[in-house]
């Protein structure tokens, strides 16, 4: 209903809320993964990131899950499907595509937000995984554990890096929340909706109070990047146009190298922390102005040490600097 009000406010032109959904089209066509999963990343272009999520091939079906996220600036494209071996090559079957366009220059009523479409695309590729690097079509990608090894908790720089991986997780997740960034978010008014993680868990999106919107993101063991899990609630309260308001809530995160999920291993190889956005009464909160976080600080805790990070420091693109695409000496397959 609020999208209706928002669009009526525009008066002059119709809203471009993207295409009509088909009747009964699922909100989240992504299925949950099981078994071994590899997440590997590489920088793309001057400010982008290319992320592969590849699951082990099932012996019965001969297929494994395949997901790919391409981020360029504020735009995100996510595809999901399956992969199989065909001789020396890998055959991809893509079934779903989510598109979150870069609409940062558009007025709110002209934005479409994240959209999803069913696709049926087949293609052949090369895929190798050796010497600590995964190569897809000849391009090197760094697996998550090797990239995360660059983060050694203890100082502010490490907290900033962990903060960037956390921000990347949320950003990748927004890329599949239908309507995110546009009037279509009003479909969650009184209608909490769950979206499964690329790897595991889920995020639940809900919206209350149409005239002073309260937008909640509940993260439940949510993993977009294998081994990096977020848990908690982040709430944004704004005025009706979404231009001014504040954020509150606390979201925990932890890094567990895949295969090391036992709690006792966490101290040895993994780490944990949290991001504090502010209190529900608006105190110590990150303030929204012009639709974006504009002032205040995030309280980022990593392994028990808390650092105050300004809103400018929450930047997933910092992850690009963590990626080292040189083959490792160990040559671990």
């Amino acid at each position, binding site marked *: 209903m609020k999208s209706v009000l928002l669009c009526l406010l525009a008066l002059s032109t119709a809203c*471009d809320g993207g295409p009509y959904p088909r009747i*009964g089209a699922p909100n989240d066509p992504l299925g949950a993964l099981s078994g071994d999963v590899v997440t590997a990343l590489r920088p793309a272009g001057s400010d982008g990131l290319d992320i592969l999520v590849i699951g082990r091939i099932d012996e019965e079906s001969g297929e494994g899950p395949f997901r790919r996220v391409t981020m360029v600036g504020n735009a995100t494209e996510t595809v999901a499907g399956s992969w199989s071996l065909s001789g020396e090559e890998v055959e991809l079957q893509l079934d779903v595509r989510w598109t979150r366009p870069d609409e940062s220059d558009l007025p709110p009523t002209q934005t479409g937000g994240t959209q999803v479409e069913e696709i049926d695309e087949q293609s052949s590729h090369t895929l190798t995984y050796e010497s600590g690097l995964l190569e897809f079509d000849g391009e090197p990608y760094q697996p998550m554990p090797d990239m995360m090894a660059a983060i050694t908790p203890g100082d502010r720089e490490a907290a900033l890096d962990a903060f960037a991986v956390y921000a990347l997780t949320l950003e990748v997740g927004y890329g599949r929340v239908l309507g995110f960034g546009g009037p279509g978010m009003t479909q969650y008014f009184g209608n909490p909706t769950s979206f499964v993680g690329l790897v595991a868990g889920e995020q639940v999106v809900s919206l209350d109070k149409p005239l002073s919107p309260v937008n909640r993101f509940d993260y439940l063991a949510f993993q977009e990047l294998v081994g990096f899990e977020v848990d908690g609630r982040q709430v944004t309260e704004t005025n009706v146009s979404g231009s001014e308001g504040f954020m509150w809530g606390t979201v925990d995160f932890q890094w567990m190298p895949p295969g090391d999920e036992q709690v006792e291993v966490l101290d040895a190889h993994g780490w944990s922390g949290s991001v504090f956005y502010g209190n529900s009464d608006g105190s110590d909160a990150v303030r929204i102005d012009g639709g974006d976080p504009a002032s205040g600080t995030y309280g980022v805790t990593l392994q028990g040490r808390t650092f105050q990070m300004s809103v400018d420091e929450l930047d997933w693109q910092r992850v690009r600097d963590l990626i080292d695409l040189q083959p490792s000496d160990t040559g671990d397959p």
Partner: protein
Amino acid sequence: MPIPKTLLVALTAMWLRAPGAEAKEPSEHALGVGYTYDNLWVASGPPLAFHGLDFSYGFEVGHAVVALGALSAGLPLAGRDDGASFSLREIYDITFDADLWAGAGYRWQLTERLAVVAGGGVHLRYLDLNAPEVQAIEHLAFGVVAVGRVSWAFRGGWTLQGEALLGLDPADFVHGGDLRVGLLLRPSIRVGYRFGGVR
């Protein structure tokens, strides 16, 4: 800009009017049900069609040249998409539509009891289909309607009213880039009362 006092006085006089004059202006108000067929031709794929049941209030004011309109709200019950039929109530938790149109027409009093009205106007239509597991379909369309009404005074001021509405909605405030045109068909039947006597 301040509103001139004379304009305020004139508007107030129009609003209040003389009691005698108001009594001479006949009006008809009716409540009833209708079947709604809504077909949306969209750029992104095959047309979407919806069938539903609506409850409506219709009005008509005037002698020969009449102001008329209707407000309706109801339940979309079935849908059709790319050749497949769907029971909307089984898919969506929220199934709701509303419709408002207003315009003008001409009334022919054929007999003492029977009158026919033809007219047209502007039209606003809202459709909301929503549930947590599926993508919400929201539609707020704007367009024009053509309307034909038959009114039969069966007892005193009581009337039985049949109405056929054809609407064309070329603009959608939610999916502006996708809607080519929406076609709305709604036959309704209502029971009403005519104030001011039958001409």
